[in-house]
């Protein structure tokens, strides 16, 4: 991608660079135009640089997530590439021998056996506790030399703990606030054991894989007889592939080969096991997550970038109009049209190159701010995932090149367009007339656009079931038809008709296009939709100006400043349309995101009702030390507690998404008969034979062949896959048992990560060693506050690693993260608003220069300074107001249609009007537009009439 961009950038820059060196006349004109008005040149660069900064920031956010997730490979795995979970802990030594085999598997540089349990840890007086940690036992000598590079194990200087000793990592030490020599309490399988802390290890490599290490004999004795429902120790064999932390997975085929070879050896030895290439999975997730976030921020930033392009075109059109007589003279003395294009291109290329460099560097700051805000959002919603700012030079280069190519394309096309002038008309500053040839070209262009539109709709759109061409095709058809009809229909009527048709299409496309085209709406669709709608809305808005002028004429008061303020934008339709579209696009996207945000935020009550199953809270506990149901119900304030069995078998289904391995591990929830008596999670789909959701859940509890699944089970909902009633699902246990089940219900929101709901009896019978009772749904007594009870449960069962959370709190936490993300996107879009406002300011600064003569004349005639100021402020307010209103209206309309009136989203949601957000979205930019106009307005008003007339001449 970078190579292609670089090639295009070189192609577009080369003519300017050649001229810079070989054409002193072009160089003089170009450079002197830049230095003549350094302030305005700086503003042009700023407008363009902001676009590049937005692109760079999108890449930086993606890189940061990529690096942060990839860093998990370093902090939690180190040399570990593959984790083999041996079903029976007694088979661990045999598994190790089997994998090591008579000869090492090619590409493997280390194999290590490790036993782990989940436990809670606290300091000696239990004032600081960590409820859910992994404690392991390992042959420390073997661990230190595990893999080819002992330094990445992080255990190089760590001594082996004795029977009454423990080693913990630095993260755990920080939570417990203990020092070497202090006692650390370990809670597992109902016991408390006090151990002396003898060493700290970095939270990296094996020091991150497990939070603490104890003596193997001690672990064996602690876990000798796990109570029913508690997770027995995990017996793991860790496999290190050749290489260090990251290069060991560079070739995924090699990783798969080693995984297969490992599995073959274990099967040959008759050892039950599960395998997962954890590092490869993490790194792949990192890449996917990074790419996804880059895409989100690129698309959202795309609105700002398009606004930046509009600004750039607008500035160059203004520049050309201002210099038209000079250009005419240059043509008269022998400059060719191509020379004019190159002269403009040279000046623009210098702006573009500086802007690309400044923008890419500025993007680091923007990216840093986005990452910082994201980290804050994670922190407020209880997510402790740590982001590490990553600024990859290649990303900066790509952003700079993207910005450069966009700017240069806009510059060259505009330069070519404006250089097509008649010498005499240019010198005399007369408009270019519409010629028969021009009209013919317009008609041909319209025809071509219409044909392209039809081809896009029928070919990749309806034929290829791709939503973007299906959406863009009809819009191009309307635009083409408009151009074709231009010679016969009045411009204003045509603008209203074509604009309305485009807006209607943009609002109702999701209902008009076939469902199989609209079911998989990708994020870039919204950028295309925004551009289409704003184009239509702008066409309509340009007609409003003349109507407003006529209204002013109807009044008795002269309102000279207002009339003059409207006269310019009304007369210069193209330039006004560019400014309007620039504002409208940003406001459209801000409004759209505000609606999505408010709609999502308004769902909390509904989601709580959906997931709570009539209870108040869920209580999770440490798998090695689960809470006994009786102990919970004995606690004051607990009215009832329903145990839920958790286990992680593998699953397949007839609706599997392609991205899912078959069969794939998925955690289930097992329920006993009577679970539905208090209530049940709400079902989005329910088999007809059940009158209520509770009845369906009762059927699941008693019939092992029935299952309720979440709507995204086995990645349904993506890849165009949907889960439906009567779908067949198969559960596979590690012991080889399989159970076919029929889907009788689908849960929409699985905020509790319940997974598929099945009969608890089935799990107990078929996975006797594999289930844990680590979750309870709890109801508080009528006189007890749910929040207070949650705190009381946490305090009472700290040694069980209890985590009690009311459903309301959980939903709020989840939504706050999503809403925070929406806020972040809004903030990111606000950068586009800066472009819009700065752009308006720049165009007005240039307008003042362009209109000096008129200002001088007006002042000579006695037009007061206040009138001149008002004239410019009216112009800014008019453009800002129209852009804002059209953008907000289009944003509301589109969001309303998508949220409540179409199948484009997973489920229709009730539309929530974003009142407070919309007030800000409308008012702030309007104030910004007027503020941006203040400086040029004051400058215009301060011009002395004689000076203005003299300078203009």
């Amino acid at each position, binding site marked *: 991608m970078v190579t292609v961009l670089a090639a295009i950038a070189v192609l577009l820059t080369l003519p300017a660079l050649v001229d810079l060196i070989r054409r002193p006349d072009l160089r003089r004109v170009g450079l002197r135009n830049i230095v003549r008005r350094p302030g305005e040149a700086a503003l042009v660069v700023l407008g363009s640089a902001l676009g590049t900064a937005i692109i760079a920031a999108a890449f930086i956010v993606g890189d940061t997530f990529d690096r942060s997730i990839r860093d998990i490979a370093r902090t939690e795995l180190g040399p570990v590439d593959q984790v083999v979970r041996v079903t029976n802990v007694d088979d661990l030594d045999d598994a190790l021998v089997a994998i090591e085999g008579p000869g090492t598997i090619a590409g493997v540089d280390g194999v290590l056996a490790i036993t782990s349990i989940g436990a809670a840890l606290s300091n000696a007086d239990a004032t600081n506790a960590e409820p859910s940690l992994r404690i392991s036992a390992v042959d420390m000598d073997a661990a230190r030399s595990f893999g080819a590079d002992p330094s990445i194990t992080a255990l190089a200087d760590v001594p082996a703990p004795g029977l009454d000793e423990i080693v913990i990592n630095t993260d755990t030490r920080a939570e417990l606030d203990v020092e070497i020599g202090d006692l650390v309490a370990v809670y597992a399988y109902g016991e408390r054991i006090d151990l002396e802390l003898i060493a700290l290890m970095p939270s990296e490599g094996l020091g991150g894989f497990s939070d603490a290490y104890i003596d193997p004999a001690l672990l064996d004795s602690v876990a000798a007889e796990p109570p029913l429902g508690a997770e027995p120790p995990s017996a793991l064999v860790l496999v290190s592939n050749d290489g260090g932390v990251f290069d060991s997975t560079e070739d995924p085929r090699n990783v798969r080969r080693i995984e297969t070879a490992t599995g073959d050896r274990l099967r040959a030895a008759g050892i039950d096991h599960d395998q997962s290439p954890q590092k490869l999975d993490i790194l792949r997730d990192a890449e996917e997550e990074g790419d996804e976030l880059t895409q989100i921020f690129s698309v959202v930033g795309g609105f700002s970038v398009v606004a930046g392009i509009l600004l750039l075109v607008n500035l160059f059109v203004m520049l050309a109009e201002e210099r038209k007589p000079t250009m005419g003279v240059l043509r008269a003395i022998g400059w060719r049209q191509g020379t004019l294009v190159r002269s403009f291109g040279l000046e623009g290329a210098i702006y573009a190159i500086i802007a690309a460099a400044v923008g890419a560097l500025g993007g680091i700051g923007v990216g840093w701010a986005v990452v910082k805000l994201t980290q804050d959002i994670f922190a407020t919603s209880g997510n402790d995932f740590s982001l590490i700012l990553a600024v990859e030079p290649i990303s900066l280069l790509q952003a700079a090149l993207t910005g450069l190519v966009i700017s240069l394309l806009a510059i060259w096309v505009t330069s070519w367009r404006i250089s097509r002038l008649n010498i005499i008309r240019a010198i005399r500053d007369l408009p270019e007339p519409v010629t028969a040839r021009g009209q013919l070209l317009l008609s041909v262009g319209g025809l071509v656009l219409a044909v392209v539109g039809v081809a896009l709709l029928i070919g990749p759109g309806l034929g290829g079931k791709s939503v973007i061409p299906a959406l863009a095709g009809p819009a191009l058809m309307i635009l083409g038809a408009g151009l074709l009809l231009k010679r016969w229909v009045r411009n204003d009527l045509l603008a209203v008709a074509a604009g309305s048709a485009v807006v209607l299409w943009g609002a109702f496309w999701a209902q008009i296009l076939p469902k199989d085209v609209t079911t998989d709406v990708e994020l870039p669709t919204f950028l295309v939709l925004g551009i289409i709608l704003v184009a239509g809305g702008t066409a309509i808005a340009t007609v409003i100006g003349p109507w407003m002028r006529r209204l002013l004429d109807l009044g008795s008061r*002269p309102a000279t400043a207002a*009339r*003059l303020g409207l006269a310019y934008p009304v*007369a210069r339709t193209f330039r006004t349309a560019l400014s309007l579209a620039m504002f409208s696009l940003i406001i459209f996207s801000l409004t759209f995101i505000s609606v999505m945000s408010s709609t999502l935020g308004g769902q909390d009550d509904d989601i709580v009702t959906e997931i709570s199953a009539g209870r108040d809270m869920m209580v999770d506990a440490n798998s090695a030390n689960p809470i006994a149901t009786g102990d919970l119900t004995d606690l004051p304030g607990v009215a009832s507690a329903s145990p839920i069995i958790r286990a992680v078998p593998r699953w397949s289904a007839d609706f599997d998404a392609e991205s899912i391995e078959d069969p794939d591990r998925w955690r289930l929830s097992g329920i006993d008969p009577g679970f539905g008596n208090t209530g049940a999670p709400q079902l989005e789909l329910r088999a007809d034979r059940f009158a209520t959701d509770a009845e369906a859940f009762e059927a699941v509890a008693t019939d092992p062949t029935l299952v309720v699944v979440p709507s995204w089970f086995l990645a349904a909902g993506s890849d165009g896959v949907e889960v439906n009633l009567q779908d067949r699902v198969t559960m596979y246990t590690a012991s080889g048992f399989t159970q076919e089940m029929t889907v009788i219900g689908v849960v929409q929101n699985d905020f509790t990560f319940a997974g598929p709901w099945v009969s608890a009896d089935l799990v107990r019978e078929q996975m006797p060693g594999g289930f844990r009772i680590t979750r309870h749904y709890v109801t508080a007594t009528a006189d007890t506050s749910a929040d207070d009870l949650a705190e009381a449960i946490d305090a009472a069962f700290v040694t069980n690693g209890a985590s009690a959370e009311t459903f309301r709190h959980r939903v709020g936490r989840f939504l706050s993260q999503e809403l925070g993300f929406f806020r972040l996107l809004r903030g990111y879009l606000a950068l586009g608003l800066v472009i819009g406002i700065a752009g308006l300011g720049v165009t007005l600064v240039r307008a003042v220069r362009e209109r000096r003569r008129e200002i001088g*004349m007006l002042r000579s*005639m*006695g037009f007061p300074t206040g*009138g001149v100021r008002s004239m410019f402020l009216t112009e800014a307010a008019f453009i800002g107001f129209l852009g804002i209103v059209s953008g907000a209206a289009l944003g509301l309309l589109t969001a309303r249609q998508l949220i409540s009136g179409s199948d484009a989203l997973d489920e229709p949601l009730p539309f929530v009007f974003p009142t407070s957000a919309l007030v800000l979205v409308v008012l702030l930019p309007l104030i910004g537009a007027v503020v941006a106009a203040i400086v040029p307005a004051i400058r215009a008003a301060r011009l002395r009439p004689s000076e203005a007339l003299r300078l203009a*001449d």
Partner: protein
Amino acid sequence: MMEPMGQNILRAREVTKTYRSGKLEVPALRGVDLDIDSGDLITVMGPSGNGKTTLLNCLSGIDTIDSGTVHIDGDEIHAMRDGARTQHRAERMGFIFQSFNLIPVLSAEENVEVPLGILGVSNKEARQRAQDMLERVGLADRRQNRPRELSGGEQQRVAIARALVTQPAIIWADEPTGNLDSETAGAIIDLLLEVNEAGQSVLMVTHDRGIGAIGTRTVHVRDGLITYDGAPTTDGIH
């Protein structure tokens, strides 16, 4: 509003003006005295760059002066605040420039309405008066056209209509025929003579000796000084 014929409406004394650009100083007016009576048609002549336009700008109050006084209707206009001076111009003066300086985005009629709007004349009355004035300058059928759709002569006639529509006491004309062919220029001068005969004072800067001779007085400006102020003559200009 016009004054009785012969009454002094402008008295300028010891007016100086120097243009400064960095360290460069260019004296444009070096102590100018001038009187304008109502009904005067004064042509200002002299070589380029000797201060003719500066004289017009300083006397009309659209430029500042360094020293001296300019009294119009007894008021020292350079002692006024900018707002009052601006208001004074709106009520008492009309301007015609060589390059017309019409507002390109307004029609001929709307251009003529602008000074009336500044004076607060209602839209309806302004429209009527603009139409009457355009009819008077022979452009009744071109009133909806924008400046770019008019010839140079037509544009200048619109500019004259705009200058006259408020019936100002003084009309300042800076090379009003400079951009026009001789036939069109003649028509414009006839129009100004007609206005002057109706009692309005006109101060016209011109390079054209023929036009310079038509006034009631001629003023010759050289090196920032008035070297002649008397009956129309073109002697000693160059």
